[in-house]
């Protein structure tokens, strides 16, 4: 009996455990297994195997039961998920349904989640920009949050490392505010996007329209073929899962790579309830998981743990991992765990039309989506009455239009013979929000979910800085669009709640001082250094970049550190 028990514990003991298989968890798994560590990846959702579990990927529009629309009863049962742009008939099976995973909104917050192997990496918008030194220096310069314990120079080699493997397309634009990376050719701007770029050079030389940088294989390299991925085919049906592996996801890239190493054990359908802490040893020893179907609990053990549950769920897990030593959540000596969460302000757009360049259109589809304007406000010094700034997505397109006022044979004629419509342009704001103690997540004191986890209670809201910044965005783009000759300019405030940006960050922030932060510069919990947090929860501030690339680089950099610490036997005690 005793031997059996020892064998069972041995079978449940690994060199490393990764909690979560999304964007950053996939990277942690890949890096750990590359370094030969026997790694367990625990995923709360079901398995989604590349090219096997993409049920809609090759469907034509007419093959969908409802032409792509979400049936009304599903819509009404899922008001939160329905607000997400990928919640359509082709990809709604990858989005968490409202009733299955409830949470508490102390203030309105649309929490969009993807519970499956690969997480939201299947669904992301694939935009990838490096942070610059000006982004990392933000909190210290402007006096909010706490200073980042790392800077651009710490991250640059790791950005390169993940970019080469993931495959990033983009141009070397030479902009201080948006460092260049390891790029495959960028997807070109179209005629009107390019027109706006040239106009801005004349009217606002410090503002740049560049090709959006994205995780698509525009010119695959041997490392991508080795992953079984080939050139992006411009389908722009990415959210279904890509049969070509044309864009980066955990499913197409890091997870199968890690599995191929023979060092990875992947266990889907296991919710991690808590991280186990050994008071004698002074370190975390493993995790307790509950099977989502059988509800049986199991413990797994490893000398080092990576928490990549997805920003807010990482907060939930640490808050729920209590012990005599950590009554308020693992590593939470400072009391900041769950606080200083933030997001990106995506609630503003400006639409317009362009009467020029009528002799031009586009052919095929652009997976990058179009252009990107790096932040131009307060980059090098404070210039406005609000802190920080916004990056902007910018796209132009020409649709097909046809009058539909005919009847019978005439109507058919109209539908069958469309005309090219006007050029339509749109700019989308991606604003930095300031982390504050008053924006927080915490455990609901009484309510629990089906698996015994306390419900996460979320309290996040916009503030005056966000209001001022949005006003500036509207003014600046109305001006710039006017000067570019665009017409019918229409600023639009979506009034959307925080969360729909799907860029929730922080709560387990990095910092130099254990009294005011949770993680050190290597992503280790200050008070429990064999636990690394390398997902969005680690973010000290949000800046304006799409964050996934930074999480990938965090994970790779932290694994490198963890493995060298393991070799030095430094993770054994505090």
């Amino acid at each position, binding site marked *: 009996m005793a031997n059996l028990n020892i064998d069972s514990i041995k079978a449940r003991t690994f060199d490393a455990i990764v909690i979560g298989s999304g964007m950053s968890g996939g990277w942690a798994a890949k890096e750990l297994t590359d370094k030969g560590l026997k790694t367990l990846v625990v995923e709360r959702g079901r398995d989604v195997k590349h090219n096997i579990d993409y049920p809609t990927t090759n469907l*034509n*529009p007419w093959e969908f039961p409802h032409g792509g629309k979400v049936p009304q009863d599903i819509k009404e049962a899922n008001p939160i998920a329905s607000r997400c742009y990928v919640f359509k008939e082709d990809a709604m099976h990858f989005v968490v349904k409202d009733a299955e995973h409830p949470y508490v909104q102390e203030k309105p917050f649309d929490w969009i989640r993807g519970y499956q192997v690969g997480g939201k990496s299947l669904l992301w918008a694939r935009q990838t920009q490096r942070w610059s030194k000006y982004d990392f220096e933000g909190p210290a310069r402007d006096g909010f949050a706490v200073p980042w314990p790392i800077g651009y120079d710490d991250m640059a080699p790791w950005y390169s490392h993940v970019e080469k493997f993931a495959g990033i397309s983009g141009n070397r634009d030479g902009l201080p505010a948006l460092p260049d990376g390891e790029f495959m050719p960028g997807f070109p701007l179209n005629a009107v996007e390019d027109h706006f770029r040239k106009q801005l050079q004349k009217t606002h030389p410090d503002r740049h329209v560049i090709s959006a940088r994205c995780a698509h294989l525009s010119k695959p390299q041997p490392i991508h073929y080795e992953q079984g991925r080939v050139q992006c085919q411009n*389908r722009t049906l990415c959210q279904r899962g890509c049969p070509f592996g044309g864009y980066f996801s955990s499913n197409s890239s890091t997870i199968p790579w890690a599995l191929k190493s023979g060092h990875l054990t992947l266990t889907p359908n296991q919710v991690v309830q808590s991280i186990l802490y050994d008071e004698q040893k002074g370190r975390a020893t493993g995790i307790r998981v509950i099977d989502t179907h059988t509800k049986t609990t199991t413990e797994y053990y490893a000398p080092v743990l990576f928490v990549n549950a997805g920003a807010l769920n990482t907060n939930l897990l640490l808050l729920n991992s209590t012990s005599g030593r950590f009554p308020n959540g693992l590593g939470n000596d400072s009391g900041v765990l769950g606080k200083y969460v933030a997001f990106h302000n995506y609630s503003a757009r400006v639409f317009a039309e362009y009467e020029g360049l009528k002799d031009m259109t586009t*052919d*095929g589809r652009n997976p990058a989506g179009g252009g990107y304007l790096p932040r131009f406000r307060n980059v090098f010094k404070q210039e406005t009455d609000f802190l920080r700034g916004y990056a902007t997505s910018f796209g132009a397109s020409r649709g097909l239009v046809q009058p539909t006022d005919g*009847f019978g044979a005439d109507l058919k004629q109209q539908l069958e013979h*469309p005309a090219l419509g006007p050029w339509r342009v749109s700019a989308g704001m991606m604003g930095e929000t300031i982390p504050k103690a008053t924006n927080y997540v915490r455990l609901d004191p009484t309510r629990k979910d089906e698996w015994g986890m306390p419900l996460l209670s979320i309290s996040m809201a916009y503030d005056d800085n966000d209001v001022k910044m949005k006003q500036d965005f509207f003014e600046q783009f109305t001006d710039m669009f006017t000067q570019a000759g665009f017409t019918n300019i229409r600023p639009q405030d979506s009034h959307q709640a925080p969360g729909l940006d799907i860029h929730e960050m922080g709560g387990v922030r990095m910092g130099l001082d254990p009294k005011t932060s949770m993680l050190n510069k290597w992503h280790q919990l200050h008070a429990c250094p064999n636990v690394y947090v390398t997902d969005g929860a680690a973010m000290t501030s949000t800046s304006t970049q799409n964050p996934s690339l930074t999480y990938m680089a965090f994970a790779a950099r932290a694994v490198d550190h963890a493995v060298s610490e393991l070799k030095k036997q430094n993770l054994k005690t505090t």
Partner: protein
Amino acid sequence: MINRRLAVRHLTILAGAAVLLPGCLSQTQEEQKASYPLRHVAMSAGQEKLLAEVCETLIPKTTTPGAKDLSLPLYVLKMLDDCTPAKDQKTFMAGLGQFDAAAKKQLGQSFEASTAAQRAALLQRIDQQPKAFPEEVVAFYRAARQLAIDGYTGSKYFMTKQVVYELIPGRYDGYFPVSKVDLANPHHGQPQYR
């Protein structure tokens, strides 16, 4: 005088019979359910038939397939039943219920008994003089028309033969001269309706 009264009476009886006759015949159809298993909407086989004729009037068979050939009425039914808010379903059904009465008032006979030209003229009148019709009839017509158009432009036929959908474009050109676009050619490479 008497003769004229008699004639009017006979006419009234005839008209009444004309009103009653299809009504009597459709009794069985009204009792029958629609051919598609509907979850939310209660539609009779008779109403389904009428809806099919409205769709066919909007998208008729010409040298190319029409609504019935492409099963558009079934598409409209499914979208009505699955993807339409309850309030709009109610209005749609109310309008469908009143549609034949409106047709008789305008055409002097049922929609189904009318010629294709008469049917088209009626729909056109609803479109252009909505105030002359009950609100629900106009709402029904507008919704059915939009669904029929969606069904047509989203059909396999349309997306493979008319404005061709490309699942795998494999290219992007941001500076494509309009002079090279041949919209008469279904394979013109321009964005699809959906």
